[in-house]
């Protein structure tokens, strides 16, 4: 099996989707990325020596405890517990394909070197990814201004903490046991800065956004096949369809551009930048804020809603030809309305958190979840349409068209098996 190298600058939506399916082979860290990481990591080592300056997130506590200085020994102990209070979560369990994709995306981000983690951490994350192991992550509790909860749960898995769980070969088990069976070390000691470098930033949002984009593109391809088969009757032709579809595809281009860009950005704190003498300087910022992704996920929802109008029109035109269609027609109309309801933008809201320290949040996580739900509804809508067409005399009489629709129906059904935000 061939290898695929990540370097922090070139990962795309398509790559992630393909890698999750195993189509890219084994994912590895590129040599130049490894070198970048080693060099910035050397600086962290220096800061951990005696008489080093106080550097936030390197030798201090986090958030309001930033003034507490931690020794390197304390730090290692601390790393074994600090994911816990961050590992918030309730509700169902996120689709394992998504949590596994999140490992890959974060590994890629760390390859940029500004986060100054050891290449060993990146390799550990990729080992887990390559072994087909997915962190168990509870779905609710992230604002999107860093997916602290989901990513802390993921970091617990990477470290092999006792409580961490993972999916492996379709079963939910202790992460350590999965690692043993897959021939990986059951535990991995996270060193200084390596917890924050995994939790800070919104990579679970990104993973969901990627899945939403990828599935939507696949559904658009499927829809073209439906149109190609079915567009032989005037009754199938809805006013302005080509123009609106072109506008939607154009706009989807903007969504994809942003999501692709966000794959390759440094999103944690502090970032280390090289200064003249080969030393590095730590700089605090807020690159964990992924405003743009929240915006385009809200946009994706709008585009799906527009598409849904046309599918709904088709359903009501063809679905009025027999009592047997009534259920499908009503279901379809209902799904369109649900998609519309999802257009209420997540990004236009913000509620202050953490004693007013984090007083603007993106709700991008919610925006991406909502977009994913809309994609799923759209999948259901297409299925209703195809079922109605297949039950209609006009399409039944033409064998090649009927077979074409049958093929498409199977594709939609098989996609709906995987197209989900939550694990069953």
């Amino acid at each position, binding site marked *: 099996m061939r290898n695929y190298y990540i370097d922090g600058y070139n990962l795309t939506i398509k790559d992630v989707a393909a890698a999750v399916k195993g189509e890219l082979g084994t994912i590895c860290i590129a040599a130049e990325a490894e070198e970048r990481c080693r060099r910035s990591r050397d600086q962290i080592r220096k800061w951990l020596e005696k008489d080093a300056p106080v550097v*936030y997130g390197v030798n201090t506590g986090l958030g309001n405890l*930033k*003034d507490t200085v931690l020794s390197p020994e304390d730090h290692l102990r601390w790393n074994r517990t600090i994911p816990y209070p961050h590992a918030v979560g309730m509700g169902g369990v996120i689709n394992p394909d998504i949590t596994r994709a999140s490992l890959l995306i974060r590994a890629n981000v760390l390859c940029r070197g*500004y986060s100054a983690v050891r290449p060993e951490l990146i390799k550990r994350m990729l080992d887990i990814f390559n072994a087909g192991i997915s962190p168990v992550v509870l779905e609710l509790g992230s604002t999107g*201004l860093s997916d602290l909860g989901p990513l802390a749960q993921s970091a617990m898995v990477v470290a092999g903490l006792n409580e961490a769980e993972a999916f492996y070969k379709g079963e939910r088990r202790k992460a350590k046991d999965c690692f043993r069976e897959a021939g990986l070390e059951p535990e991995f000691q996270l060193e200084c800065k390596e917890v924050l470098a995994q939790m800070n930033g919104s990579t679970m949002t990104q993973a969901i956004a990627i899945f939403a984009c990828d599935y939507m593109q696949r559904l658009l391809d499927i829809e073209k096949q439906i149109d190609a088969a079915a567009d032989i009757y005037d009754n199938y032709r*809805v*006013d*302005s*369809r080509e*123009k*609106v579809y072109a*506008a*939607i595809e*154009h*706009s989807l281009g*903007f969504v994809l551009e*942003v999501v692709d*860009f966000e794959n390759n*950005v*440094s*999103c944690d704190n502090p*970032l280390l*930048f090289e200064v003249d003498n080969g030393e590095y300087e730590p*700089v*605090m*910022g*807020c*690159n964990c*804020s*992924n*405003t*743009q992704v*929240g*915006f*385009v996920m*809200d*946009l994706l929802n*709008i*585009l799906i*809603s*527009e598409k849904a*109008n*046309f599918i709904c*029109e088709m359903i009501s035109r063809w679905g009025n030809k027999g009592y047997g269609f009534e259920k499908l027609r009503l279901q379809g109309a209902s799904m369109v309305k649900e998609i*519309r309801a999802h*257009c*209420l*933008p997540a*990004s*236009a*809201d*913000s509620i*202050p958190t953490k004693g*007013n*320290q*984090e*007083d*603007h*949040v993106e709700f991008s996580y919610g925006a991406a979840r909502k977009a994913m739900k809309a994609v799923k509804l759209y999948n259901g809508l297409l299925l209703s349409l195809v079922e109605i067409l297949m039950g209609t005399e006009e399409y039944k009489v033409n064998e090649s068209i009927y077979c074409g629709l049958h093929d498409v129906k199977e594709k939609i059904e098989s996609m709906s098996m995987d197209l989900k935000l939550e694990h069953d």
Partner: protein
Amino acid sequence: MRTKLYLDGSNLELGALFSILEGNHYEVGTLEGTVGQVEEELFMLRESLVPDEESVVTPIDIPRVFAECSGELLSKEIGMVGLLLLLNQGVKYTGILGSRLVDRIVSFVNKGIYPCIHENNRTELSAMCELALSLAGDENARCFYNGGYVSSEKAVEDAGLGKYQYSNEEITFITNLCCMSTSLAVYSLKEAEKLAKTADICVAMNLEAIRGETGAFDKRLHELGRPYPNQIISAENIRRVIDGSEFTTEKARIAYGGDHGPRCQDAICIRAVPQTHGGVRDTVEWLKKNLQEEINSGSHRINPAIGYSIDLMIIALTDLGNISERRSFRLTDTNLTYGLPMNLVGDNPGFNHGFPVIQASATAVLGEMKLLSMPCAAYSNIDPISKEYVCMTYTSALKAKAALSLLEKILAIEVLMTAQGMDLVKDKLTDFHFGIGTNAALTEFRKNVKVTRANRFAAPDMVEADRLVREGTVLAAVESAIGKLK
């Protein structure tokens, strides 16, 4: 300023339209239109407009039926931009339409007759119909001519043009275009660009007042860390506006004495500004790209992509409101401002009340703004009677105008409060200097709104602050001090 613009159907630029919106007048001429593929649809009357024989006698009866000539008027400049957009399409089709229509529009523009469209037009079609009525010199339509608002009939008479008789093709052509939503979108784009810059200035002023950390604006975080072009620009703007500031230094933090140990990080509404303002700018830029294309391509009947980009921009602008409102909020709390007086009270706290209720009005306006963030495209549908797709772009464009007016007020409150904060911090650190840009902003603002030392009627200050933001006065002062912001 009188500049002549020669249009050929493919060379119209947003800059010229922005200039018209600023009140400048252009003379126009036409070059031979670049006729692309003639789309038949453009010369087919849409089915819902096909009249029964009794109701329509002449072509102008169609716009008479569909236009809504009542209520408030959109600005005359928005009407003029709509007319230029119509001209820019018209020159492409003189082969079919003849040159009469184009000549008529050219005379209209060159004589300085501004068609005024009523806000009660809720659809593109009705707005385009009113534009047609204006151009014809119909008695029901309104124009701005020779310094005043008059009926179009009077305007064309006074200008010596006389009434205009449309051909069937011309009416079909006009009612198939989307010039009015495009004009409104161009207006919104211009306003949004202004407010995005103003929001950066608000942050700079806020940083001065709270002696903020500037590390989050370090160019490396943006250029190397998360290099979204507009994130880079927003951080750069703020660095430029505060350039020269002594208040945003450790020295001032120590001298003021409001800090207890190193800050490490300011609140998110300050330090996530490049990411948030940058994200907002991305949506504004996307609208701009789409409009650059649209003003020359001229969509027929529907222009959904413009609608999607406006809807997205309104969502993003609401978020700009979210983050500004939180920055204003922090200014009311002495702990969150590192020692500014509670509620920014000037003198004699307790007797004097300061800014808490002014700040809460930003919250209230934000609440209204959020109500406008629901995307109109979510309500598009296939009309059950005509079976035509109902494009919501015109509605989105009208809504953007309303949203921008609210955002302007939220930012005006931040300017009002940060100016107060700057004066209060300066009271204590008299020897320290503000940045060149922030100093220019404060100085200009103070020419119009004085510092608040004691209780006084709040609303006039707020209304004045709103005017200064709307007219771009503070922005212009900053730009004349440090050069154009990006």
